[in-house]
């Protein structure tokens, strides 16, 4: 079993009156750290084709641990309503609009860059291929799948990715080792842990919500698996989850 430490900050200050919104918003933050003694060294990928371009010494970037802080990069953190329908009511007005800018993924040298991509439903995803080799970018979700071939120097725009309960899997059949995730959400409350494992989601509507944290190698990082971990956001407060331990999956 995983053991995790949770430190709940006691919220003392409440904005009484004077608040612009009756609802109120809070912040959630934390840090995901490697919970095992030994920090694994990156797995070397077996490159069995197109070595002329991909090279031979490619290491997997699925698990990136900061040697100093032991923070884990690329953990996907998102929130959901208690109804588990992906819809969060009372989105902060500043975040309500779906961003117009495109989210890009490139595959310059036989890896997806970035490996993990997060976007809002309705936002355009631009899948590029700046390499001289063709890639097929297989996006595998529960209800939606896409499998286009992207020729060298080509690109493809995807505008109709719907939010799903779990991030999409991303892969390339031509280069079997290429993998990644794409998270699509109906709301702006999602984050990716930084190199030191920290993350922060701001302007979260106050109230009870479900928290999800997922990593490619470890699976669910939060408590409660697919049912999510219930959290309570207080208006104007910050919910600091502290250090969250992550381990290898069995």
């Amino acid at each position, binding site marked *: 079993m995983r053991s995790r430490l949770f430190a709940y900050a006691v919220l003392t200050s409440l904005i009484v009156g004077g608040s612009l919104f009756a609802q109120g918003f809070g912040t959630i933050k934390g840090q995901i750290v490697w919970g095992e003694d030994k920090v694994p060294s990156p797995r070397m990928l077996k490159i069995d084709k197109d070595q002329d371009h991909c090279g031979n010494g490619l290491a997997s970037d699925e698990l990136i641990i900061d040697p100093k802080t032991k923070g884990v990069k690329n953990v996907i953190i998102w929130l959901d309503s208690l109804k588990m329908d992906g819809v969060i009511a009372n989105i902060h007005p500043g975040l309500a609009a779906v961003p117009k800018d495109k989210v890009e993924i490139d595959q310059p040298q036989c890896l997806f860059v970035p490996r993990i991509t997060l976007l809002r439903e309705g936002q355009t995803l631009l899948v590029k291929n700046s390499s001289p080799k063709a890639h097929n970018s297989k996006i595998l979700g529960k209800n939606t799948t896409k499998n286009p071939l992207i020729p*060298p120097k080509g690109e493809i725009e995807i505008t109709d990715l719907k939010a799903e309960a779990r991030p999409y899997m991303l892969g390339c059949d031509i280069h079997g080792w290429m993998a990644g995730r794409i998270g699509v959400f109906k709301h702006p409350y999602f984050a990716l842990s930084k190199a030191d494992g920290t993350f922060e989601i701001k302007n979260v509507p106050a109230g009870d919500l479900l928290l999800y944290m997922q990593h490619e190698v470890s699976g669910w990082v939060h408590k409660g698996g697919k049912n999510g971990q219930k959290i309570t956001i207080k208006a104007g407060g910050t919910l600091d989850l502290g250090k969250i331990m992550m381990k290898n999956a069995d």
Partner: protein
Amino acid sequence: MAATDAFYRNQKTLNIIFAVSSIVMLVSIVAMFMEDYNREWKAEQRIFRDVEEEMTKRAVLAAAPSEESLGDVIRAERTLAEAKKSLAEARQALEKKYGDLLSRKLKKENQKATIKADLDSITSFYNQAAEKHDSAAMEKHKREVDRLRAKFDEVTIEFEDLQREYDSAAKEHQIPEKEEEVKKAERAHKQMLSDFDRFAKLASQKKWRGWREGLLNLPFIDAFASPTRIQQYTFDELPIDYSFKYVTRFDRCTTCHLGLEKLGYDKAALRQLREDPGQNKQIASGFKVVEQILKYRDPESIEKIRKDLERKKQKAQSEGKNEEAAELDKRLSDLPDPGSLSFLNLNLPEADILRPRQISPDVLTDSRVTQFCSHPRQDLFVDGNSPHPAEKFGCTICHSGQGSATRFYEASHTPNDAAAVKRWQHDFQWKSNHYWDYAMLPSRFTESACLKCHHQVTDLIRDGVRNEAPKLVQGYNLVRDLGCFGCHEIAGLKSGRKVGPDLRLEPDPPLDAMSPTDRIKATGDPLNPPGTMRKVGPNLYRLAEKTNAEWVRAWIKSPRGFRPDTRMPHFYMQPNNSPENLPEEQRKFPDTEIHAATHYLMEKSRQHLAEVDSYHTLKAKANPSKEEQQKLASLEAKYEVRTAAPSASKLTLPEAATAPDRGRALFSEKGCLACHQHDAMRTEVRTADNKPLPAIAAESNFGPDLSRLALKLGAEFGKPETAKKWLVSWLLNPSAHNPRTLMPNVQLTAAEANEIASWLLAQKAEWTPEPVAPAEAETLKSMAQMYLEKLMPRKDAKRIPASGFTAEEFEKLAPEADERELGIGAPDDSRLKMYVGKKGIANLGCYACHSIPGMQAAKPIGVALNEWGKKDVERIAFEDAESFLKSHFAVVELRDNPKDKSKPHEEWARAIKAGKKPYEQYFADMLDHHHRAREGFLHLKLTEPRSYDYNRIRTWDERLRMPQFKFARSKKMKDESDEAFAAREAKEEAEGREAVMTFILGLVAESIPAKYVYNPSADKAAEVRGRQVLDKYNCAGCHTIRPGSIEMKLPNLKEFDNDPNIRKQEVPYTGDEFILNEHIAWSGLSQKKPDRWSLSVVNPPLQPNPEDDEPVAGKANIWFMEALQFRNEGKTRNVPAGSRMEIDQNLILKSYPQYGGTFMELLAKYLRRKDRENYGDSKINYAYAAAPPTLVGEGEKVQPDWLYQFLLNPYPIRPLTVLRMPKFNMSPDEAMAIVNYFNAVDKVRNPGIGLTYPYVGVPQRDETYIAAKTTEYINRLKAAGKYEARKKELEPFWNRQYQEKLKEAEDRAKKAAESLDKAPETEKAAAQQAKATADKLLADLKAAGVKEMERNWEEREAYMADASRLVVHGNLCLTCHQVGSEPPKEFKGPNLNNAWQRMRPDWTYRWVVNPNRFLHYVSVMPINFKATGAPENQDAFVGSSDQQIAAVRDFLMAYPVIKDWPVLRARPVLGMGPPPPATPAPADKKPPKD
């Protein structure tokens, strides 16, 4: 006597008599009328009238608009009324201005029509006269015609003038516009209210109205013109067989079952009528709307409303409430003008007539609900559009019973269970009607009637998966799998006519093994074709090398003791042959017989194996002697020897070491579990290097459960390793051991077979064999004596077992006589056993299921079942059934729990808990000596076949012989208690038994007129036949063959339409693929019913994350295998195949599981768990690609002749699969049937693609096609400005080629010149000739130069050359497929060099467009050509994406024709590194032959 004027009789007396008789007559007439008035059916019809009235009122409510849309409705109504009014006014105005213009026009129009009619009639007289060449009449008529024509022309001109005049007048008054407005308003009105108006009118008609109908329905009067009357169907062509006479069938069932054909009369709706409508909010609010609408149509009430509103308005104004006043003003202006309402002319009833009322539950009882409800399957029966309309088929042909009866009793209704018996006895004083032979079928056996016309049985499975008679099909499958037909004839033929299913054993040897002449002889008689069924048990010719006598004995004694779910029935330890139930002298017989039979089987098997080995030795001999040749010929004549491989002992096992991991992995992956189960596979294990070898929860019982295999095999009991050679040789080629086995050759290597065999034999299992007492010589002798007594004098029979036959006696025995086994002289134990064993086997009919040496010609031992379904009860021997039942069973009232039919009744479970065998009361009653019925006999016969002679004194061989079968294959579930399992198992067993009964009761051999018998179209027939072969070889064990089907209610279209999977039918489509509208994967067929969708779906694929496999609670995951087409907001939408959706579970009305694919799913799950790196996460589709491929759409995919060859001789195609297509023991006819199945299915399923079979045209290999495409392509090159560049690119190649050719020609000319010099005089002329030819060739070549090649490229090669370049483009096909000699980067897809003979051209195109439309998982192959944006790969092939796809297809299809064209190698492969060397190797070392 003198005459007197006195009356002969006393007048007073007479008066009294007259008065009395008048009174009596009056009374009797009154009684008669009363009796008539109270006839059962009349009472029912009167009640139904009320029901009907109420149902129509409810329909009015349902059709009424919602409260919210009431405003719209009233507005629409008002608009319509006003439009009509305005039109009428305009017409009036026109009339006013132009006087009688309209009437003059109409008058003229009439006149014109009259003259036209006259003219036509005279013309026809003229024509008649012309036909008879009657010139006088012709002339007369001609005059008349001319006169009329002149008049007609004149009137027409006048009419046209008037019409013009009218038109301009109408235009002046805007009449056309107004007419258009009325039309528009009518449409809008109709959309909202047409149903409502219709039902409202209907409801008023249904009302028991006025005195007239009431009067006619009164007692007495109703005898004359009653509103109630008998309704009947008459069938002259579907008569009842009264044994001596065929009598017209009258079905009067609808006299009482009045709602049978009505839509919406389901039980729930009828039950609702019993509730008080006042209590129902929905009804109350609905009725308020109805009232409102009607009020707005009534001028009087509108006047009232107007006054009321005006009063309120005035009040508001006076109070200064201006807002309110304005609002009221608006409402006032919305009111229709009472004057205009008359234009609506709707003539609707008053609201009160439509007010719903309650029908008392005492009147509308549960029984009446059942009686009045509509047929539950109107889509299949009764309805005029269904396959069985009532007016064609009636009722009794399916249900039986006396159709002409109008009383409950006389109609021979049959209750369905003991509870119904009780209820009916109470409600209807039910008793069974002995005066009608064909009592109505109880609903549990209704399906047996299907068999009368559906002789193939599997034709009852519609669309491949919709099993409409599940019980009958289950029964048929059980009869087929358990081999009932081995003993009981089920022929289905009566004087050459088909009257039922045909399940006869095939001839021995089978047709395939016969010589052509014998085969023609065997199939020559169309009235008596040979049977087709294989024996269901294993062939016992090679028993001795497979197992040992000890195991065989224990097995025969108790097969289920060894393998609980075996199909082999129990012959011993039955009520009539358990030692404790046998008389003293027979007590040792059972075990002795088992010993003897085993001995016989093993001995005969050893002899056979010796023959087989000597046959192979002799065959291998280089120079056989004459005797040897003779012996070889005699052995060759034996089918079983000829087809057999040398005995397993001759096999050399591979030397490589085996490992349990590898054996288990191979057993998991090579497809064994598609047919077998193994307990060891239920738990996961770890390999030596700690990797998981996952469990596979296989539940197939097509083949035997192999868990205890190691206990069974081996020449020595308890030493499974002695079986290794046999098991390996069996795995390598099962049909060498049993030429008719259904186990295929799964194409293992010897090493693989060795691994699997080693693993299987190492699996430990527990088993306590049933002890079999040794056979004593004395018992053997007394048994022999018993058999001999039937043949010879007692004295001899007593002597022979001890002292044996004399040589003389032996000589006299018939050549085939069993007694020959005893031999000459005193028989030893072995010979006695051979004799007793053979007799026992013959007596029990073991050869019905097993091929047994020495028993080829034996006849079936059971009673024929061809007409058993109507067997006379008087001819059935019930014997001791009743008492046996009492002493052996606990009779319980019901089997199923009435609340949940899938669970056993409490009483049933209680009986089992008490250790008793439960027996359903329903069947027990049918054994009662007063109420014996064939169902009762059959039920006990299938439960305890040996019960009927329980405790009777009979000789051993005269006892009943039918063995006891088990029909259910129940498995204990996790978390199920032993007791719960036992109760469920017994229930499932009873259900299986009932299924078999349903089948047998359906065997009535009735000659139904041909037009009623199901006569499928050629495609349907191919489907039915193919399905039988697919079932026979368990193809569905591995492959998904047909998608499942669901019926669902319409979802909220607004929300549904938002799904990203939905294509908004735009052509040309602007998305990532082309839309192929003719194909069902892109564009669905229109739905047959407006209120529901029928979808073709399969199990959604496994998810990248196993956690997500389970659907969300309340949701159902569906994966579309055909597009769904629907309309929303007037626009057509398509959810294409390959889409996945989550829909609300409660929208699903019915779902039919898919046909096949279980193992595919199991294997994918296994691989995902076993090797996450290669099959998990986003690579889950590789797990599917590794499994057996789906065969949905196989017909449109592959060419029929290729599939045929492949089925008979499969070879590896897909590099990604972990297992191989096995080679089945299939006849060419069967292979053809499978090919036809797939083609027929796709032709019907996918009408838009115009599939042809058995032949398919491939135009791409045609020179003219290639030339035409080339011309087109050259033009495209020119238009794109790439023509010159291409030519330039090719010039060096042409030059090189020219130089080569030139050199060749020069050499030839030089050689010819040399040989001319050397030639002797006699050959000079010939040599001269040769030189001239060579010179000319050289000259021609020089003259043509490179131009010739250029021309050839331009006229013939350019298209294919560039197409080839596109195909071998390093970033396209060559990534995964081999093309020509170019190896792919990675072998993932099939070798494309063979595509030309394997794929259909059209399919190839569609597949390249989007492979995901054909699969139920994401294809490993990506979408290579985008439908939008600038086309890519122009350096390889100039053209749009769809032209490129077509080019790829054309290249692949034309491959054998073009593969040797040098030009294909003239240009380097793009994206594959350096260009190939100047002189490339030939394209394909082993080119496929045409």
